[in-house]
């Protein structure tokens, strides 16, 4: 398992809103090196979530290119994007209820995330993955019974289920208290460090922002702090 480069070139996203065009991203250029961990921050409406969804292959930009390793997302078909999401990226969302099946255990959630992969493809056992991420004691519990912090940490593990080279976390700590926030950030950094996974964390929390090696700030759809 290792990381991957991420390169966004002249990325532009325009929304139609009540007959007018609203620019969410304006010619964003962003390069992330293999195994690098960066934080993207900015105020509400700065385009963080839009950028996240484009990086996750959930949205096609109006213009520009997105290259993740050898894969150019902007040139992919929907089917290719779907396939890529199954193998190339792990996503952690703000709300763990959108990332986890509440009635299943963390272990089952890991297996569920691997359904996108062929049966022939082998991964380390779910319990081993959870153990590596320090979540062994939660493996058999039902997700709905876990606390918010525990659920978010499980979300990180589930995002890593298919051992992707890129992990994108969208406001992963916004609903957590400080203790749990730190635990989740610790876990993300451990993933980045242990597996070499490229890590992009979108946050407006300065405490999180400060803990990542590199920081990029967006404002009004533009990169206002160095993109390199």
């Amino acid at each position: 398992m290792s990381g991957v480069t991420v390169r966004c070139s002249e990325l532009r996203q325009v929304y139609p809103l009540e007959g007018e065009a609203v620019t969410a991203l304006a010619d964003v250029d962003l390069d992330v090196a293999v195994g690098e961990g960066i934080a993207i921050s900015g105020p509400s409406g700065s385009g963080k979530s839009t950028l996240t969804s484009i990086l996750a292959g959930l949205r096609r930009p109006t213009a520009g290119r997105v290259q993740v390793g050898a894969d150019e997302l902007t040139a992919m078909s929907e089917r290719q994007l779907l396939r890529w999401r199954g193998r190339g990226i792990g996503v952690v969302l703000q709300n763990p209820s959108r990332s986890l099946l509440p009635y299943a255990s963390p272990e089952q959630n890991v297996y569920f995330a691997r359904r996108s992969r062929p049966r022939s493809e082998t991964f380390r056992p779910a319990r081993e993955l959870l153990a590596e991420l320090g979540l062994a004691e939660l493996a058999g519990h039902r997700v709905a019974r876990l606390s918010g912090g525990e659920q978010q940490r499980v979300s990180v593990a589930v995002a890593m289920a298919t051992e992707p080279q890129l992990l994108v976390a969208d406001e992963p700590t916004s609903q957590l208290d400080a203790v749990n926030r730190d635990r989740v950030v610790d876990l993300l950094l451990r993933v980045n460090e242990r597996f070499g996974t490229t890590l992009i964390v979108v946050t407006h929390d300065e405490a999180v922002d400060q803990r990542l090696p590199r920081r990029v700030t967006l404002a009004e759809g533009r990169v206002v702090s160095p993109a390199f």
Partner: protein
Amino acid sequence: MRGRSLVLPGLWWRRGLNLAVLSVAVVTTTAAALGPLYARASTESTLNDHLTEAGSTTGLHFYAYVDATIQRDIDRFESTAPRPGAIPGYDSAIDGIYTPEKVGVSTSAEGHGAVTSHLLWRAGMCQHVAIVHGRCPSGPLEMMASQRTFDSGAYGWRIGTKLYVGALSVEGFDGNPEGAVLRVVGTYRQNDVNDPYWFGRNYADQQFRGDQPDLVDTLMVSRATFAALPRPAFAQAEVDMPLNPGALRLSDVAHERRAVAATVGRYQASQEIHVTTQLRLVLDDAHREQQLVEVGTLLVTLQLGLLAWLVLFQVVADAIEARGNEIAMAKLRGLSPAATVRFGLAEPVVLLALAVPVGLLAAVGVTHVFAGSVLVPGVPVVMAWAPIVAALIAFGGGLVAAALAGYRTLTRGVLDQWRRTTRAPGHSRIGLVIDVLLALVAVTGLAALRAHHHARDTHDSATLLAPGLLVFAVALLGVRLLPLGCRWIAGRTRASRRMGLFLASRQVARRPVGLRLAALLAVAVGLATFAVAGESVARSNRAARAQSELGASQVASIQYDAKQDPVAATHTADPDGRWAMAVATWLPDGGETVTGTVIGVDGSRLAAVAYRPAGGPALASMGEAVGAASVRPITLTAPQIRLHITGRDLSAGTPYVQLNLRTARDAFVDVQLERLRAGAHVYVASLPCKPGCLFRGITWDRPITVEGTMRGTATLTGIDIGDGTTWRPLDASLTNPDGWRAAAPQGEATDELRVSFTGVTDRFRAINGGYGGILYAYAPSPIPAVATPGSYVSNPKLAMEDLLGAQATFNVIQSADVLPDVLDNGVLMNLPFVQAELPAFSEEATWSVWLGPRAPPDARARLEAAGLHIQSVRTERQRTDQLARQGPALALLLLLACAVAGAVLAVGGTAISIAASSRRRSYEIAALRTVGLPRAALLRAGVIEQLLLLGAAVALGVPTGLLAARLAMPVIPEFSDTTPVALHYVPRLAPTAIFASAFIVLLTITAVLAAAWLMRTAVPDRLREAEG
């Protein structure tokens, strides 16, 4: 471990919603499987009813003409008939020997006291009659006479009397010195002529024949007696094989037809043994009704199946929508479209599959309940292939519903799902066009049904589609008006303090997502209302038909002893005339003026006892029309009578004074007194009236020696009765102008009557051998009658005629479309009048006693105590139940049950949809609470919003259902046969109101609970969750 095991945890996680989906799927499967199961059970019941109603006509009657004295011939015949059990359902056989030709019977070898009768032996006959005196004949030359033959006292028969039996000559019976002598060992009374044992034959056929030997009830003899009769004794050897209706099932019918046809064909070829049966015709009739049931059931279950499917579609859509986040998660994780579909539909598919066996079991259970409560007891509920196929089709339909319902969720983008946005509602115009087109199709179908329906076509079950089409069209278009109305309300309340109403109407006007639900609910409510109203119509019509056909709430078929007058006996049992009335029906033997059935009723009791026939005149009006005599009949029992007559202006040849009487045995008993003399004189005569004579009148009888004109005036001033030494006056209403009338002249004669305070004065004139007289007018002539058109020939010169040749004219006072019992083909008259005019009427007629609603519990015992023998009793309830088991009624009942279930199901579906959408709505409500709107106003708004949607369904469904009942019921078959009884189609208010009220309560509870649930989930924290 790749997630297959997630289905069960998922099902359990959303157990409330999934249970609801399962329930709806089970109801859908049940509805589908119920159709064939119910149809099968109903047609089994119909078959059984037809076979039971047909009675012995479905039996096999084998007979051959034999010399009954030759046992070998009889044995050979009996051995040739099929053995019991050889043909399915024919499990028993009754052997018998009967003389179809009458035999002569007398108490002496010379033919003294000769009567005629038939001889009968039938295996086990003594178990089917009541032996009143003595014992059952067992040995040779033993016989048993009917008790009423004994009671008549006319023949001097007693237990132990020896009777001479022989063949009749052309002149009658002159005795049989060398014939068989039978000994009377007992008397019997037939329990019930309708007992299947008798195979539809009535052996109680006693008739007093006037100048010919009387025919007395059949004489029951031992089998050995036939061998002892003088040879040859031609008789009919019989083997009767009754069909056990319960033993013949639908699956046996084809085989049974073949087996019976083969048997009949084999014996017809032999020409020695004859066989008769009506089985084929009965089965044909049953088959026609079976088709009615099957088509009706199919149409009903199709409609309800469609309704259930739509609810299922709605509920499955909600269930899949509730998993929207999980499906988005699957897409986020990169699951292939096929894997996502599998994941998304796995839970509904498991539930649909589970619903198949559960639904089948439920259908069997429901059919058992139906069978136990409506159908013939013991009808089997057969699980054949059809219900299983129907359940599988429902399963397939469920899959289609799941696929269609899940399409939107499964194809929605991940971000769209997260944002909880739906596709732009740009389909509303297309939806409107589709709705209008569907409504047009429905209206066209409805119009076509009405146009092609033929009046009184009892086999046009397609009309059962009419109400469904109507409510469908109205619901589709009606709910389209709801947003318009709500927009208007929102505009009116925008600046008012009615915040709840404003929010609710604005919500419905802007986001009419509940319209489909409202339309579905409106269809369900409309169908259920139609079913309730339609069943109330059908139930009323069944009651009306049963009441009209029976005439009263209970009809007891009776026999009576020779000395009894059933009218008088009924008066004894019910002296106040409140609950019992003797009734006789009679088909005139001649006269050619009545083509229908004459029904004689006790006019004074008609209104108190009978039911008014539907479409017929009021009972009081009929009773008044047929009239009551102004004078009562006079029964004479005294040994002598004395007439006070004053003669004036008499011609040379004076008539004899002749007293006209009637006894139980002799219709015309005339007692000759002296010749009429001028001046006031007393005329005395002895009366042959120990058992009682009916006083009829006085004839001025022309002596054979008198020629030319016979004229004069005679005034009857008084009548006394006594024993010759003491006399007492008889009240013969001599001063009542309505008490007397001129007798029908014999030949050329005129009688001019005048009644004054001195008495009855008759100025008579007779020429050319004619003569006349005066009649005591206890019966009017012509007899007033109420008749149905076509049941009589309007010719007052013609008269009804009885077997003795007596004639009676009648005058139709009132015309009626329908009469009690005889319906559209009869003439109703006052019974005592007909008895008075037609002496053989009582013997020829079929008698019954009608019991009204006020009949006491011991009514039958009272009638028996009064001397009437009750054979069988038919009740209104029995007939109503029988009509309720006819094919069309069964289809309507199924519609009622399914439609009410469908309405409840639709409410359930509504509740589920509200619950499923509550999460989405809770964000909006939470936002409104955050900006400071009071909770009470929001709760009110929630309740009003639900009430607007659900109330629209009721407001549309109930009137449309009632309208459908009013429009469709006249063309929907209610009976499998036509009836002249007037049917009414106005639904009864009470059941419809009760149903609508109950439904409104149910909806209101649903609306309040849904709003409360929404308020509970709409907490501000919800908004934080929405940010994710």
